[in-house]
């Protein structure tokens, strides 16, 4: 079955692999470069916190870290698009081309067929997203070494398990869309729209009702550097929600991640269930 998946969707799989591994490699290279600047040395942080001037040599690296925003930020949406691209074609392409008649006429166990048919693209997606996520985790750690990623929402959703889970969720949802529509292009468009909306919703719903661990006093924050989660253009510390009081998950970060994982897992299960129902009930023609 892997051979069928590879021969029928190899272009999408190669694209997802290239993008995921490419992001991972680029992130690792950048992370290594940033580490070489010894970002976050106490001397430099003191200069920045006191805003005595821009003479700190690490500022060059800081500028580079800002330019890496794109590389980091891209992983907010890439897993959703990658999962949507692969998932949308698992069933839809077979129905659209009429090839699904062959497996569905050979066995009535359609859900088992779906599991076997989806396994290889899912593995490709997982490999791609794991590589990208590992690279991004290193980059996130390197670009703001003064921040503990496990206590801050800086670059939240771009490292760790989140991109991998997001990719799987998108894959499940898109597979359901493909099974329901049975059309390649329609399924792709609808899946990408739904996945983009889901990505935005997941992003904006953070921290998922978990209260802040610490309310930071701006004066203290500026003096100590604590709670810096992002930088404005004028080098003032800002938060992920500019204009609001800074949110610091601190020790509650694990709760934030658990709730995010639960939301993504529930959405994945919904997608899998919908795909199974659609595959069981639908006719093999578009």
């Amino acid at each position, binding site marked *: 079955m892997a051979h*069928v998946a590879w021969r029928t969707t190899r272009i999408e799989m190669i694209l997802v692999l290239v993008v995921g591994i490419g992001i991972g490699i680029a992130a690792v290279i950048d992370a290594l470069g940033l580490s070489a600047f010894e970002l976050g040395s106490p001397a430099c942080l003191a200069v920045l916190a006191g805003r005595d001037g821009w003479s700190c040599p690490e500022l060059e690296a800081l500028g580079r870290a800002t330019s890496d925003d794109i590389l980091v930020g891209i992983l907010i949406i890439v897993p959703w698009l990658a999962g949507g691209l692969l998932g949308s074609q698992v069933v839809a392409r077979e129905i659209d081309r009429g090839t699904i008649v*062959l497996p569905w*006429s*050979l*066995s*009535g166990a359609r859900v088992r*067929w779906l599991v076997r048919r989806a396994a290889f693209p899912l593995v490709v997606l997982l490999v791609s997203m794991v590589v990208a996520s590992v690279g991004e985790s290193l980059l996130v750690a390197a670009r703001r070494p003064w921040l503990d990623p496990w206590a801050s929402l800086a670059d939240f959703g771009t490292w760790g398990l989140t991109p991998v889970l997001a990719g799987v969720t998108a894959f499940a949802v898109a597979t359901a869309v493909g099974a329901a529509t049975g059309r390649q292009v329609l399924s792709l468009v609808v899946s990408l729209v739904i996945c983009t909306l889901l990505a935005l919703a997941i992003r904006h719903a953070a921290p998922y009702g978990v209260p802040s661990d610490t309310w930071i006093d701006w004066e203290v924050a500026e003096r100590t550097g604590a709670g810096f989660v992002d930088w404005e253009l004028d080098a003032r510390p800002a938060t992920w929600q500019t204009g609001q009081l800074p949110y610091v998950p601190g020790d509650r970060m694990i709760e934030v991640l658990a709730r995010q994982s639960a939301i993504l897992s529930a959405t994945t299960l919904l997608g899998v269930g919908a795909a199974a129902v659609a595959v069981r009930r639908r006719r093999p023609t578009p």
Partner: protein
Amino acid sequence: MRRPDGSRVLLAEGLSKRFGRDVWALRDISISIDSPGVIGLVGPNAAGKSTLMKTWMGFERPTKGSVAVCGDDPTRRSEQALQHLGYVPQVPALYRELSVSRHLDLAAAIRPGFDRAHAERRLDDLGVPLSARAGHLSGGQAAQVSLAIALGTRARVLLLDEPLASLDPLARREMLDVLARDTTEHGSTALLSSHVVADVERVCDRLIILGVGRILLDATITETRARHRLVLGERPADGADSRVIGSAETADRVPAWVILVTDRALSGQDHPSTQEPTLEQVVLAYLASASRRGDWQ
């Protein structure tokens, strides 16, 4: 070939299928098939032949009535029902990127008990290269691959949905020969839908004529020939022993009528001006009759 539990190989009872609000593909169809051999399913386009087969395959759900394959409802117990079925669609459902050999691998992976060697032998006999990609095969070769996969399932029932439609005469003959040989050797049942009456006549034991969702005739080929007569000239009147089916033409384009005669009439003196019709004349008469009654709307 009724099963030990008494269930028929293929059964449709009061089967109706509607698409959308008012397009009826099948209306109150009842068919029972429990004998081995090849059965011809003949009818014009949109007669409901494909829908009937797809309902047995579980690809379509009945709007009314029920269907069963060896006693199993294909919509509720699709795994059990499909293990008795082999299916050849009108357009071969092959992956153009995969080789023929990979198709056999796929079938073996999906279908428990798939006889790969049997399918390979069929293809080898016909000179279809296993290494060729499906996308590079001719229409006839693709149809043969499709049939070989269906035969490789060793299913008790084969449903062949106009597999000959796009084939040249030689390829048709090869395919029909393979089908006839296989059903004879393995005692299986094949339901072959076709537009071409000559093909049906060549291999079938029984004929079912479907006219826009309704069964117009269901009889063995021998019965069909024996119970119909061709009357030349003016339209005869319906009588106690005979019923006019529809108009026909002789080979010389002489207008004629196909009539259905009762057993009593058969045992008595045959009408001097009648002759035995060809199967094609019978089929065309039934279809013309359905058309005249407005069944095509």
